[in-house]
């Protein structure tokens, strides 16, 4: 077997390991759909009645935030991976994984892929809910596939970022803290639930560097507008940051067990 074959095989095995765990106990997965459901059902429905929000393209508010809510829920799932890996370190599992011949890179990619699988589940649930409550999205098969691709990349990106942070912070408490400290500003400092044009000038500038903005933009172009002009930039930005964070996490992951 060549090195790439081994690396890919190991990554898929790690992802399989996570998938099997989800199959044994999927409670957490279902609980994680509650929050996005509330955003759509309560926040979305209430704000739908405020007609004065300057939403581009004449979409309803609930249509506008559906992609944003999806992106946010994937973000929350992914950022959780740093906590998982610290927990695995605490119970000795990480030592065991690192003592296998698998390349470090494969371990990180495998975990990140697993985050992607959880992200897809979030996507399916949010699409289902949108259909049930009559949120009009473009359910073109290619667009949906594109959205899932973005979901997987985005989940991998932030799961790797989270694992990188975990390698430096090393405790669950600190990871919980940093999780909050990252996700909330990212969410509110993006175009997820309101247009950038509503933000004060300084925040608009900040949001241009917010990866969530690009992810939401990509999803919105596929699910709502059908205007793909921004898509290449969005995906390129996402690919680059995913590769960067996976590389970082592979290099520093070992710090956790030292």
């Amino acid at each position, binding site marked *: *077997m*060549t*090195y*790439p074959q*081994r690396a890919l*095989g*190991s990554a898929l*095995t*790690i992802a*399989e*390991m996570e998938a*099997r*765990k989800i199959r*044994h*106990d999927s409670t957490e997965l279902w609980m994680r759909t509650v929050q996005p459901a509330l955003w759509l059902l309560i926040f979305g429905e209430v704000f739908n009645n405020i007609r004065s929000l300057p939403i581009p393209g004449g979409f309803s508010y609930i249509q506008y935030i559906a992609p944003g809510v999806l992106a946010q829920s994937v973000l929350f799932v992914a950022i959780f991976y740093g906590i998982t890996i610290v927990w695995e370190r605490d*119970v*000795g*599992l990480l*030592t*065991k*994984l*690192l*003592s*296998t*011949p*698998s*390349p470090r890179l494969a371990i990180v990619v495998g975990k990140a892929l697993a985050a992607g699988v959880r992200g897809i589940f979030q996507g399916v649930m949010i699409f289902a809910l949108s259909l049930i409550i009559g949120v009009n999205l473009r359910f073109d098969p290619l667009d949906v596939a594109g959205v899932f691709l973005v979901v997987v990349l985005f989940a991998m990106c932030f799961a790797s970022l989270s694992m990188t942070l975990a390698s430096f912070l090393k405790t669950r408490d600190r990871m919980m803290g940093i999780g909050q400290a990252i996700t909330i500003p990212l969410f509110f400092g993006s175009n997820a639930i309101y247009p950038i044009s509503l933000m004060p000038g300084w925040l608009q500038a900040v949001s241009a560097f917010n990866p969530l903005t690009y992810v939401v933009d990509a999803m919105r172009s596929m699910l709502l507008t059908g205007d793909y002009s921004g898509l290449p930039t969005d995906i390129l930005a996402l690919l680059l940051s995913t590769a960067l964070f996976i590389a970082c996490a592979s290099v520093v992951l*070992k710090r956790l*067990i*030292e």
Partner: protein
Amino acid sequence: MTAQFAKAEKTSEAVGNGFAIQVSGLTKVYPGGTKAVDAVSFDVKEGEVFGLLGPNGAGKTTTIKIITTLAKPTSGSVSVFGMDALRMPEQVRQMLGFVPQAISVDGDLTGYENLLIFAKLFFVDREQRKKRISEALDYFGLTDRADDLVKHYSGGMMRRLEIAQALVNRPRLLFLDEPSIGLDPYSRMQVIRQIRDLNRNFRTTIFVTTHDMTEADELCDRLAIMNLGKIAASGSPMELKRSVGGDVLTVTVSGPLPDSVPKDLGTLVSADGGKVKILTDDGEKAIPKVTDYLEGKGATVVSVSLSRPTLDDVFMKYAMADLRDGSFRDTRSARRSISRHGR
């Protein structure tokens, strides 16, 4: 990378220098400044069961972590089957199995899945995988519980599952960090037997750490005693016991216990719970002298008994030396076949 890997694999088959592990000048200083391993050198021969003994904090786990490529040494070299562990960590890990000190099977998977996933991570062939897994489950008496989540297993079952992983992956070199900790006497005996079987049937080289001297005596072909990051003595259990030499004098006293004894009486091994243990060249001759000495210190001698040294006494002598006043160091000369390292 690919080419290097392929080459390394070939050489790994070809190396036949007879050593599973060669460690030289190994030192590890943790960021906090603790010198956990201090210029240690030793060899483990292919096919043997090697025991690393030592008190808590001696540096045993740290040594294992370095050889298994999980930690980087501050200095020194490590080679595994002739391959440089610092330069080719992945290739080295392909040949080893590791049962860490803390139980580390995955509670959220079933027993079968634990074996399956780790077999895949060790690139065990698909055809062999199924057969080996069911054999291993059978051998370790886990077949009935194979489809239960491991978090519902008892501690002993988890340990057995962990060793079963080694049976599936068939590493050439298996590290076991205190494998029998927390096991009842029966499970402990079983685990020891299974480790020995692995060694005999597959010629797996075993590197084991333990605090249990009886276990070390039964299991190991060769031992090293580590203390404060250094190897204090090494040899076969027999050699080590002989090196301690003479007799162990156990004196039961009432009254004050001594902190040390004059050199011509022998070496004080322990003094607590009303019992004083002294190592001497000639136990019978030492009895009156020791009795006089102890009574001179205000104690009353209740009884005296003589025995041959056990591995416990060896451990006490080499491992606890630095916890006392260092008076053990120069007591014995008859070390014959024992190689002493460090210091």
